[in-house]
């Protein structure tokens, strides 16, 4: 049991103490976590980004071209001075413009076109798949997609056949929420198991 393991174990216990009630030990560990996380992010950012991408290039390689992005980045900080704040919009405009230009075609292709293509109904099962099961899967996907879309179509009143179809969409949504919740419970239990293994195994040495 080394010192760092003991510190980590005690801090874990401080956090778990919240299960009984809010207390100063929990508050201390919570604030420490926030502080350490920010500090770590700052150090990693300086060490992995600012030093190799700016300081080294400027001071060791005499690459003055980095002055341009450095100034653009510095412009964002102009928001902190009310008199100069409008200059930050210049840098933000570049970030938003370039970001949107890069993101829109990629997202359209990956999230919409490819996903739509995958839902197209095909009667030809791929190799090594059970034919009728494949077709059933495709029907379920198509039914789920169209009924959920119908549910979120608000320009037409949800009545009659359309209303019934939209209601089918709500059942698909409920199944999705249930599955997501189940996976969330599973994930949270995994985190707790990890801590128990750490406390009983790494710290106290009770587990092999």
């Amino acid at each position, binding site marked *: 049991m080394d010192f760092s393991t003991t510190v980590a174990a005690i801090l874990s216990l401080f956090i778990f103490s919240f299960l009984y009630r809010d207390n100063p030990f929990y508050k201390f560990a919570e604030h420490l976590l926030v502080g350490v996380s920010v500090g770590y992010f700052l150090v990693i950012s300086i060490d992995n980004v600012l030093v190799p991408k700016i300081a080294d290039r400027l001071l060791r390689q005499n690459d003055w071209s980095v002055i341009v992005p450095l100034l653009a980045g510095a412009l964002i900080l102009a928001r902190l001075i009310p008199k100069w704040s409008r200059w930050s919009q210049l840098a933000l405009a570049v970030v938003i413009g370039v970001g949107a230009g*890069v993101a829109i075609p990629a997202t359209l292709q990956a999230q919409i076109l490819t996903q739509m293509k*995958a839902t197209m109904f095909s009667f030809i099962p791929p190799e090594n798949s059970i034919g009728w099961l494949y077709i059933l899967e495709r029907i379920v996907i198509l039914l789920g997609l169209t009924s959920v879309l119908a549910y979120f179509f608000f320009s037409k009143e949800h009545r009659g056949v359309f209303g019934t179809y939209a209601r089918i969409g709500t059942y698909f949504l409920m199944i999705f929420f249930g599955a997501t919740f189940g*996976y969330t419970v599973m994930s949270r239990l995994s985190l*707790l198991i*990890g801590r128990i293994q750490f406390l009983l195994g790494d710290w106290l040495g009770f587990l092999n």
Partner: protein
Amino acid sequence: MKRQYIYLLILAALTIPLFLPLGLKHQVTDEVEKFYQTIEDLPPGSTVMVSFDFEASTIAETKPLAQAVLRHLFSRRISVVSLSMLAEGTGLGHSFLKEVADEFGRKYGADYVFLGFRPQYQATILGLGEDFAKVFPQDYLRNNLSDLSLTQKVRNYEGISLIISVADGDLPQYWVDYAQTRFQKPVAAAVTAVMATSYYPYLSSGQFSGLVGGLKGAAEYETLLGKAGLGSKGMEAQSLGHLMIIALIIIGNLAHLRTRKKI
């Protein structure tokens, strides 16, 4: 029932199997099998990019996932170029990579490289497709990429056979958006259970070459590797925990029905 009693019951359900193993077996699902097979199909000597896109809070799930995947890669003599898209994943990713590489006697620089962290995933993912050295002139350990034999050989995605994102958030989606759409690279994901449902459509559409979800996925992967690890050890506790939660839900609902009838 006081909520503290519920916590104690859950704690007991999760702790007992750690001391008294139940001997439960894991059935391997298709998505995990597909992930495994994708790596099996890579010829030895290939290079895979592994991105550690997670934070410290999910280490209980991401560590078994990362270890299982890295063990498979190194056991098949596949080289690994690695990085992190999140600052917190940097130190963790490097330690996991080094630990498994040492287990298999792999050499840094020749068999694996850890590039480090860069913010702005869009620019990073796209930039890596052009030239690793432009985005990461130096690796995490401050070596010039031009001095390492692996990054002399593999300079951009052209030399990468598969991209694997070990993630606790939405980063795998961005690997699909930018690395796959722009550079046609296959992407596979090993994600926390809470994220798994979001990624099944990507598996179904063929955008993911495989999906390993949560501790259960890690345990299945370890079954395929034939070596029990953190995933398998935790799954028995997980199973008993699930049973306890189901029992508590049933008891809670029955109690609720009984009180409603009285009203």
